[in-house]
């Protein structure tokens, strides 16, 4: 049953892939630590360059997954030191992380967060190893109707769990799916929404889309913050970046519980690191906060969200690898990257491309150890990245974006399209949308339509096939329950909890 893992370690331990896992971890931590650049932006900016290297699929995926998990590590730096979360997953880290830093415990806080990240990720990677092949075996039985129902469920779960405004999340997803319909229709060869432009026949290119949506809109958004000084950029002294065994053991319960919670939340499609962080923090607070120390620099309050957000990052690989349904915005980008290599992730990947699935999982084990080894001694170096001014950062992003798109297309139309999508992304963000649903819709849209049409071809046009099987009926009911419950529950319980209004990684 674990043959894929043995083969995977064979792949991941080759000198090239080991080097790439290391490089990915390093770049990811750096990008995650940069102000304003979370995992999703980091991958969007670095992906086209990884693509140029001409790496085989599994190596490219190992590099990108390294960047992803590394960025989750890097995101905590500014949370702890500056009280500014580097990405959505690190929002909860500020609550106890920054008070610790203000107490002069910045170093131990960074050390503890590295250890908790490691513990959370380890729990989740073990879960991924055990759970993914089992789920893949179930998923082999999925037909087009089941896949369609699964995607509906994924979008429903995302609308409810992600972002502050379910309507806007749903609109974002629909816009993403609509963008995916541009180009030649694979079923009939008809051109859709191309307006006679040959550049659009193949659809809106993935790289153009993610660079525009994330990198360009980020540049425009940063402009508003360039002249604003509402954050105290005073860096607290690091002190020793070392965490004692006693401190780790004090938090072991928090780490274990949050790691498990984070994994489960990561597996659910559409719910990423920010939900995991929030749920684990509130759970841990309820369980352990006997003396009211949470929020004033309690180590457990730092360990819980850190373990959870790294666990959810690894957990979101479960639906992506086994079902081809990304668990988060970032895994949606990774899924798109895989599609560039003509690999459609899904249940067959464990049997047909074990070197990709196994190699990735094995590299997560390796990357996790590399990250711990990098982050304990080098925290001081990474912390210095925080002080890079925007006037250096923004032009660098611009160069990476332009070269990334140019080297794939060598024509100006792609670059113009990237700018247009960038403005579109900027407007969406200003209007309170998160971009993760848009990218999920865009990546899944094509598959969703294909599966719908394949299902209806099988049934000869009878829509009943969509909910005929037990699996698909269950998914439809689960989706309906997800959409109705958040609206119904508060009325039943007469009270609701506040939501996070941050972009999800």
């Amino acid at each position: 049953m674990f043959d894929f893992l043995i083969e995977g370690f064979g792949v991941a331990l080759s000198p090239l892939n080991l080097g790439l896992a290391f490089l990915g971890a390093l770049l990811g931590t750096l990008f995650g630590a940069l102000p304003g650049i979370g995992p999703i932006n980091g991958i969007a900016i670095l992906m086209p360059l990884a693509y140029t290297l001409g790496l085989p699929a599994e190596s490219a995926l190992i590099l990108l997954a390294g960047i992803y998990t590394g960025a989750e590590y890097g995101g905590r730096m500014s949370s702890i030191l500056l009280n500014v979360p580097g990405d959505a997953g690190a929002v909860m880290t500020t609550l106890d992380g920054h008070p610790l830093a203000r107490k002069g415990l910045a170093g131990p806080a960074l050390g503890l967060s590295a250890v908790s990240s490691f513990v959370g990720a380890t729990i989740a990677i073990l879960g991924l190893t055990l759970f993914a092949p089992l789920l893949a075996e179930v998923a082999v039985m999925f037909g087009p109707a089941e896949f369609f129902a699964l995607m509906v469920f994924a979008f429903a779960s995302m609308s409810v769990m992600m972002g502050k405004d379910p309507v806007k999340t749903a609109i974002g997803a629909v816009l993403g799916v609509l963008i995916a319909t541009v180009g030649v229709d694979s079923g009939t060869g008809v051109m859709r929404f191309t307006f006679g432009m040959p550049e659009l026949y193949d659809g809106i290119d993935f790289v153009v889309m993610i660079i525009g949506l994330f990198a360009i809109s980020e540049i425009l958004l940063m402009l508003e913050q360039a002249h604003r000084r509402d954050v105290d950029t005073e860096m607290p002294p690091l002190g020793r970046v070392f965490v004692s065994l006693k401190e780790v053991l004090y938090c072991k319960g928090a780490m274990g519980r949050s790691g498990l919670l984070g994994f489960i939340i990561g597996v659910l499609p559409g719910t990423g690191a920010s939900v995991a962080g929030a749920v684990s923090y509130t759970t841990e607070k309820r369980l352990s906060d006997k003396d009211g120390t949470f929020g004033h620099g309690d180590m457990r309050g730092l360990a819980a969200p850190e373990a959870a957000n790294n666990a959810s990052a690894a957990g979101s690989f479960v639906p992506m690898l086994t079902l081809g349904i990304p668990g988060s915005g970032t895994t949606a980008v990774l899924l798109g990257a895989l599609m560039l290599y003509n690999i459609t992730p899904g249940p067959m990947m464990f049997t047909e491309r074990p070197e990709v699935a196994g190699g990735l999982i094995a590299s997560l084990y390796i990357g996790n150890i590399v990250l711990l080894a990098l982050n304990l001694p080098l925290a001081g170096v990474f912390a210095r990245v925080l002080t890079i001014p925007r006037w250096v950062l923004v032009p660098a992003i611009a160069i990476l974006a332009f070269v990334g798109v140019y080297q794939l297309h060598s024509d100006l139309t792609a670059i113009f399209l990237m700018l247009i999508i960038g403005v579109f992304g900027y407007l969406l963000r200003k209007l309170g949308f998160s971009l993760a649903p848009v990218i999920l819709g865009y990546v899944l849209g094509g598959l969703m339509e294909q599966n719908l049409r394949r299902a209806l071809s099988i049934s000869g046009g009878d829509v009943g096939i969509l909910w005929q099987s037990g699996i698909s009926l269950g998914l439809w009911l689960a989706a309906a329950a997800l959409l109705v419950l958040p609206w119904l529950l508060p009325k039943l319980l007469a009270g609701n909890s506040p939501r996070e209004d941050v972009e999800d990684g």
Partner: protein
Amino acid sequence: MSDLAKPVADRLLGIVLIGLAAFVAVQAIHLDVPFSYEPVGPKAFPLGLAILLAGLSLVLVFKPGADGHWPHRAQALRLLVVLGLLLAYALLFTRLGFVPTSLLVVAALARLFGTTWGKALITGALMAVGSYVLFTAGLGIGLPTGTWLAAIL
């Protein structure tokens, strides 16, 4: 920012999106397939999306959220300048070549994001040359040397 009691941005967005939905629907209806082996065809999916989008947008129109913080005039102007710079970068990228264009655009961006002209120019020069070496020698990416330069030579 307006002090209107009713939030405007979401209503406006809702109306624009309903327009988009109508446009998509009209475009989809006019997709003609000579013959098809499958019952669904290329129309149904975009049509369904258009209906869904229109429905969701109606919710926005009738239950809009609060307006966000929009840039004031000076910020909006700077935003347009940045966009103009990126557009110029695109237009000059192949014509003037990677290094000179990057130097100019990086320097202008750095200045806009709040540094002095001196530092901006040094950053521009370092980044343009540094990234050129990194991309061409390090990653083997071919970058344009500029058609204008080639025309002169």
